[in-house]
């Protein structure tokens, strides 16, 4: 019978876990260092989600492109029939698709992360790790699809002969904004879903609604929008992300500074709210999940 134990290299190589005391969770700075310690698990959880998704999906990687592509085709068809939407200096399909890429990331992350806690209930009740890793893994995993659909976006830009200008350096900033806002809302919804199980049914509805209140299919300063409504729509943090994406990718695409400012502020607020609510609710996950 094979020996049960194995001679291991220096144990110091593998750091010790923190001791836990009555009030358990580490606070503030040590919370961040704990997350750092669990970074490998974050990677593995994201890797698991992605691998499983691709093994099960009929078209695999192609699905990452097909979804925004088909949406773009449908809407282009409709809007070219209904009436022109001013898409600035770029053709409408490109205009539409370029915002659909981050939008698809947002909706995908939200759906996956929203149920990530309840869906991994068996992990939560058996193993210790910072629970935030679960929605974070969804956010991380979604980046792969995002990269695939972004690659297709590059192809589209080549096709339409649109070359980016110096503003391209802002593209990573827009991506970060996209991730932060998605993660913020996901944390909030994921934590709420543990307590109130009908939240996961609210998410698809929110997404449907969101598509129309976010300047994905139309520019933020579209003429047909009454100015009062425009101000309200500016409160949507994703507006800034969409406009930011378009501004960074396409030349001569101006961006409304005020809009961007409001968006960023609200986005950060949402993120903080999500994180705080999550940490507070985390204590009871294992008990009520």
């Amino acid at each position: 019978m094979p020996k049960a134990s194995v001679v291991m290299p220096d144990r110091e190589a593998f750091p010790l876990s923190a001791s836990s005391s009555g009030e358990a969770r580490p606070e503030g700075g040590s919370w961040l260092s704990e997350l750092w310690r669990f970074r490998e698990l974050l990677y593995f959880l994201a890797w698991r989600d992605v691998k499983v998704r691709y093994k099960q999906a009929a078209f695999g990687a192609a699905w990452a492109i097909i979804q925004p592509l088909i949406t773009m085709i449908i809407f282009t068809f409709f809007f070219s029939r209904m009436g022109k939407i001013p898409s600035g200096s770029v053709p409408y399909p490109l205009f539409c698709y370029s915002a659909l890429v981050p939008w698809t990331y947002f909706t995908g992350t939200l759906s996956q992360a929203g149920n990530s806690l309840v869906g991994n209930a068996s992990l939560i009740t058996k193993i210790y790790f910072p629970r935030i890793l679960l929605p974070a893994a969804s956010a991380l995993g979604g980046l792969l699809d995002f990269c695939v659909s972004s690659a297709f976006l590059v192809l589209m830009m080549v096709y339409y002969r649109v070359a980016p200008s110096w503003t391209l350096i802002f593209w990573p900033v827009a991506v970060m904004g996209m991730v932060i806002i998605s993660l913020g809302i996901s944390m909030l919804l994921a934590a709420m879903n543990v307590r109130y199980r009908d939240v996961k049914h609210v998410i698809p509805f929110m997404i449907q609604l969101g598509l129309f209140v976010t300047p994905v299919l139309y520019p933020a300063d579209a003429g047909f929008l009454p100015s009062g409504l425009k101000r309200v729509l500016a409160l949507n943090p994703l507006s800034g992300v969409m406009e930011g994406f378009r501004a960074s990718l396409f030349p001569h695409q101006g961006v409304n500074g005020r809009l961007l400012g409001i968006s960023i502020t609200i986005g950060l607020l949402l993120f903080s709210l999500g994180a705080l609510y999550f940490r507070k609710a985390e204590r009871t996950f294992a008990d009520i999940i």
Partner: protein
Amino acid sequence: MSDSITVERLSKLYRLGQASQDTMLRERLVSLLKNPFGTKASPAETIWALRDVSFSIQQGEVVGIIGRNGAGKSTLLKVLSNITYPTSGRVNVHGRVASLLEVGTGFHEELTGRENIYLNGSILGMKKREVDLKLDAIIEFAGVERFIDTPIKRYSSGMRLRLGFAVAAHLDPDVLIVDEVLAVGDAGFQKKCLSVMQDLRKGGRTVLFVSHNMAAVENLCSRGIWIDSGKVRKDGATHDVIESYLSTFGGSDQTSADLSGVESRQGSGEIRYTGIAFLNSEGQPQPLTRSGDSLRIRFFYHANQPIPYPSFGFRLTTELGTLVTDTSTWHHGMDIPEIAPGDGYLDLEIDFLNLLPGRFFFSLWITGLSHNVYDGIEHCASIEIELANIYRSGKNIDSRSGIVFFPQKWVLPGAHTEQVSVPEALPAGEGRKWSGHRTDF
């Protein structure tokens, strides 16, 4: 020896009926609208899963946690593993902790065995580097080399179990917390589990072990903690704690049976059995009898008239009807000149019960000189014999190993072997002997 685990006045409160309290957001919103500043309508029912639990465990100790289902053992382990938080009190665990509350946590069906090893390893707290180094050993331990790159949805449940345990076995933690992992799996798997835990013990690791397998607990653990209804009922040497725990089993209905009311009996009835009781050597009720224990069976009778030279006897059968033994006072050459009318009793003293665990039925009879039957009742009482560490090896010797056992020793000429079982009956102190000779049947 430094403290590995300290628990101070740990308490954990659970709210009952949480499932029915506003689990839907729409309900919550509605109740908020109706009653924006009101407090909760009715205080929820609560239960203390743990109450004022305190103990401390030194580095290197192997402690068994025992108790009935629902006593709070798993909750205690969850708190120690940082999965759930105390309502009050403090918990301190030092060193690298690995919790095995379930084997194969996080396994995903679609991933291959190899992929699941990495995933499970990471979940349990191993770094990827560590898994890389131990990968071959893990695969070998699990015995799934041929299938390591097949998705585990194709694995049998036994393979899954072995794989999950293989990863856990290579964890190398300072503190290992194990919850009834041994309860699942076949004998081979359980053997492997035990050997891993023994290795850990030899390596000076602290192990906290929850199990219902008393033989394993007795064999592995130097110390036992009995949790009953959320409190520490006893904390001390394993054997004592297990004894105390098992003695609460059974209840008074196990110790005696009233036979006076039994209708379906044969015989002329001048003398009849009225009761049977199972006692210990002091004549007190013995609610729990284990393999190898001593036992005194008291037969109560009532005689209507003087009875000359009666013989009292019984037949012991298994649940399936196999005759274990058929004995009587006549077989022992015991002459009872006469039994006076009235009530009385007769004892049968057994020093060492050679029965393996199981339920055994009594059929009793009283016969006279010319083999006439005064009283005969079939299957009128039963006794449940419990598990015991009879060969002192920690192995689970139960009814699958037969009906009886006997003290024995294996001898292999010319080879060095290790054997922990003793050739004699249980030494004094562990069994309760009151006579020097063994009972002859």
